[in-house]
């Protein structure tokens, strides 16, 4: 725990490498490949160091704490790594490294002379600031790192700022993130008033819960939930994630959302006895997020927006787990804590594997077929077999097919929910959360069936799709690496369980210090004692083996037989055309009529011709617009924009007018202080 621990030096060095990775590229020759290779190398090296350091903390228990003197108000800068931080650090280092390699092929300097350097610079900064957020233990440092992260994400996501929709999504994101940060400022100030300092460290037994701590909790839910994309604060997410370059989407969706969840976990962990409604609220928001995200994902026509809404669903699942763990804390049920938080943390890890895989795969599709509109794709599996297979694995993992990654984490969350409403002093909310997650899972199944079926199966619906091609090695290797991880990560969950247990203990530790009576009487049981992870993993491996055997036999038979290749889904027609297939819209129409509420149904946007010689007219493809954004936030925002428009008259752009303002203020101040001298007694 000493200041100059090797773990701390390793981790801070790793962060510095990642943060500075974009710098050499800024001075390198424009259009040359030296800068981008060096930058990918630096991110990779930093990530390797960072992963080693995180594993030391997570599995060997080598926590550390560093105190740096600071000229800023708010005390010294505290940095500390406990297993909880370390668990979240794993995706923070892993995904950006793979994304950086992917970026060499996806956004090469040679083809993007205008913005590739800017993108690389902010990409490195984004990854490094996320790591600092995870380590910061003083409010001031946390907020600084948080803001750097938010702004770096803004600049990275708006790389294609020439497109109006990317700019619009960027503005919405910027407003949303700053509204959230405002909440966090309030939270930090309130917290500092309670603890008497900006250090986020709880006294023995945790902070006492008072009326102001409920305000702290609500502000944390708004601020951190906004960053995590939790319903109803998710409205910025699909646009920003959809419009960003794919490897940035992968980092934002796969990692940055988790940093929001981490913040919520960290702040809540400071309190000794959280009231039951905290956990209840998180259960509700989590279940709502899962349902809402899945329903809107099903209505999307854009590959990346669909994936972004699916992230909202997955954040919902994680939040449900966190809510259950909080309920367990207030009810004194350590096994709820273990299952809820264990499932949540596993899902954080696994989602940060399969969602980047899907986003990188979607990037490969955009790269190969030149469009993100599902209704213009089709038949890609034949043209991009490797990407297609990896994408299928990602979809299956997102749908929690055993034995892939998502299955294990969701299983643990479900088991926790079952235990919470089956046993004595059961929780009614948990009884509602489990079916809500199940329904969300069913809708997500429909959404991903649509995504994979329309984009990869069938015949191409456009010329671009029929000329699609497999991406280059720089893009393919990260995709295949993630696919491999997705396949084995679930099977490795018995090995990951000790790390997750350590993180759960670290989360509980401020309130119930290890060695205290409470900790001895009601220890948080290890995950493996509650769920037979080992057996399930063995069964899963057997299942995979069987599948491989079956596939091998099939391949053997096919080699002997003569195989005729024809159009997919020709249904016996003599001359099938691509227009006879299902489209994404027609399939989605079937879903949104039956499985999801009407508010989430896709609508057509019609721009009618106007006048005798109309300039333009268009009918967009049907797309589901966020009801929250469309019905609530947009009218609200435009009403205020109209009000503020009148103020614009004050800002004339003429220097003289501004000087008059200064003069007026000066005279008013002088007059006020003169009058005060007369009116008030000296």
């Amino acid at each position: 725990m000493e200041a100059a621990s090797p773990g701390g030096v390793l981790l801070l060095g790793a962060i510095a490498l990642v943060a500075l990775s974009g710098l050499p590229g800024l001075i390198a020759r424009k259009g040359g490949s030296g800068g981008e290779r060096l930058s990918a190398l630096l991110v990779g090296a930093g990530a390797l160091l960072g992963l080693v350091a995180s594993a030391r903390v997570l599995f060997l228990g080598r926590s550390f704490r560093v105190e740096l003197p600071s000229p800023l108000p708010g005390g010294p800068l505290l940095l500390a790594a406990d297993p909880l931080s370390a668990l979240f650090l794993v995706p923070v280092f892993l995904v950006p490294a793979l994304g950086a390699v992917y970026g060499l092929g996806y956004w090469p300097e040679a083809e993007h002379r205008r913005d590739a350097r800017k993108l690389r610079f902010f990409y490195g900064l984004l990854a490094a600031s996320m790591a600092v957020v995870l380590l910061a233990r003083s409010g001031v440092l946390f907020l600084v790192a948080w803001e750097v992260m938010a702004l770096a994400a803004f600049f990275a996501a708006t790389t294609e700022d020439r497109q109006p929709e990317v700019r619009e999504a960027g503005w919405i994101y910027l407003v949303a993130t700053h509204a959230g940060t405002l909440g966090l400022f309030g939270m930090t100030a309130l917290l500092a008033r309670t603890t008497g300092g900006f250090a986020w460290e709880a006294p023995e037994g945790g902070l006492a819960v008072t009326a102001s701590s409920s305000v702290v909790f609500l502000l944390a839910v708004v601020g951190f939930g906004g960053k995590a994309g939790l319903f109803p604060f998710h409205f910025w997410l699909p646009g920003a994630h959809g419009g960003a370059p794919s490897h940035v989407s992968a980092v934002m969706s796969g990692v940055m959302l988790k940093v929001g969840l981490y913040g919520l976990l960290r702040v809540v962990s400071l309190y000794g006895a959280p009231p039951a409604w905290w956990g209840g609220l998180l259960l509700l928001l989590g279940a709502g997020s899962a349902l809402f995200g899945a329903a809107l994902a099903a209505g999307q026509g854009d590959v990346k927006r669909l994936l972004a809404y699916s992230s909202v669903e997955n954040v919902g699942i994680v939040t449900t787990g966190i809510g259950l763990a909080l309920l367990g804390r207030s009810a004194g049920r350590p096994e709820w804590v273990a299952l809820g938080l264990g499932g949540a943390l596993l899902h954080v890890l696994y989602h940060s594997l399969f969602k980047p895989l899907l986003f990188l795969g979607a990037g490969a599709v955009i790269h190969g077929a030149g469009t993100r509109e599902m209704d213009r794709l089709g038949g890609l599996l034949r043209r991009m077999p490797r990407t297609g297979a990896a994408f299928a694995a990602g979809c299956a993992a997102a749908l929690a097919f055993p034995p892939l990654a998502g299955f294990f984490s969701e299983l643990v969350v479900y088991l926790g929910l079952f235990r919470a409403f089956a046993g004595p002093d059961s929780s009614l909310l948990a009884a509602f959360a489990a079916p809500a997650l199940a329904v969300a899972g069913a809708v997500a199944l429909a959404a991903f069936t649509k995504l994979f079926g329309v984009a990869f199966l069938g015949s191409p619906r456009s010329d671009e799709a029929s000329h699609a091609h497999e991406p280059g090695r720089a893009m393919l290797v990260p995709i295949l690496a993630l696919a491999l991880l997705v396949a084995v990560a679930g099977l490795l969950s018995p090995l990951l369980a000790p790390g997750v247990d350590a993180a759960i203990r670290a989360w509980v530790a401020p309130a119930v210090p290890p060695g205290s009576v409470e900790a001895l009487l009601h220890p948080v049981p290890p995950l493996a004692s509650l769920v037979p992870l080992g057996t399930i993993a063995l069964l899963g491996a057997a299942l995979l083996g069987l599948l491989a055997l079956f596939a091998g036999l099939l391949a053997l038979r096919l080699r002997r037989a003569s195989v005729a290749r024809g159009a997919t889904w020709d249904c016996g027609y003599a001359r099938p055309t691509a227009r006879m297939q299902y489209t994404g819209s027609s399939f989605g129409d079937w879903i949104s009529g039956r499985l999801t509420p009407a508010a989430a149904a896709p609508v057509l946007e019609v721009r009618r011709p106007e006048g005798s010689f109309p300039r333009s007219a268009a009918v967009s493809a049907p797309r589901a617009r966020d009801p929250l954004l469309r019905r609530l936030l947009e009218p609200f925002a435009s009403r205020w924009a109209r009000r503020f428009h009148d103020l614009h008259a004050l800002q004339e752009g003429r220097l003289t007018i501004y000087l008059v303002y200064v003069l007026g203020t000066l005279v008013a101040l002088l007059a006020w202080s003169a009058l005060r001298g007369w009116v008030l007694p000296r």
Partner: protein
Amino acid sequence: MTHPVDILLVLVILLNFLVLGTPSLRMTIRGAALQGTLLALLPLLVHRGFGWRVAAIAVATMALKGLLIPGLLEKAMRDVHIRREVEPYVGFVPSLFLCAVGTALAILFSGNLPLAPEHAGTLLVPASLATLLSGFLVLTTRKKAISQVVGYLILENGIFIFGQLLIEAMPFLVEAGVLLDLFVGIFIMGIVINHIRQEFSSLDTELLSELKD
């Protein structure tokens, strides 16, 4: 009113009126130059001790505000062939009236300030505030860029008078820095004025609002 400092300051205030009341650019510049020269004498009078520091400030101020800057401005005026300020935003008589009101307010206000006893009887603070306000008036009511530079100069003169209250507390370096700042500022403005004329063939700052965001 018998103190020599006060006589000097009354002259400075009168010069404010001169600058505000005349349409001739040459008179405006000369008025500001004279005001600067008078102010250069101020440190010598406020401080009884005749140290090298005070003398250096006086000489530097006189050289800059009395000679160098007015010279620059007159050269700019000749270069751009403008002699008169026509059609200011606020006419000459109303601006004189405003200046009078401002001066009265300044005197009233400074009566209420808790000043050090050695400054309480003098006109230092009222003159400073009145000059500040007149500078602001020139800056805001005139259209020609040269007049605005003069306004800036007068504004700075007001600040300079106020600085006399603090001359013992203020390091020499700060005053030297302020003077240098002023000089560089006006130097740059002189160059900018020339370029504005070349680009837009007018010095009406009103037309510059085309450049706003």
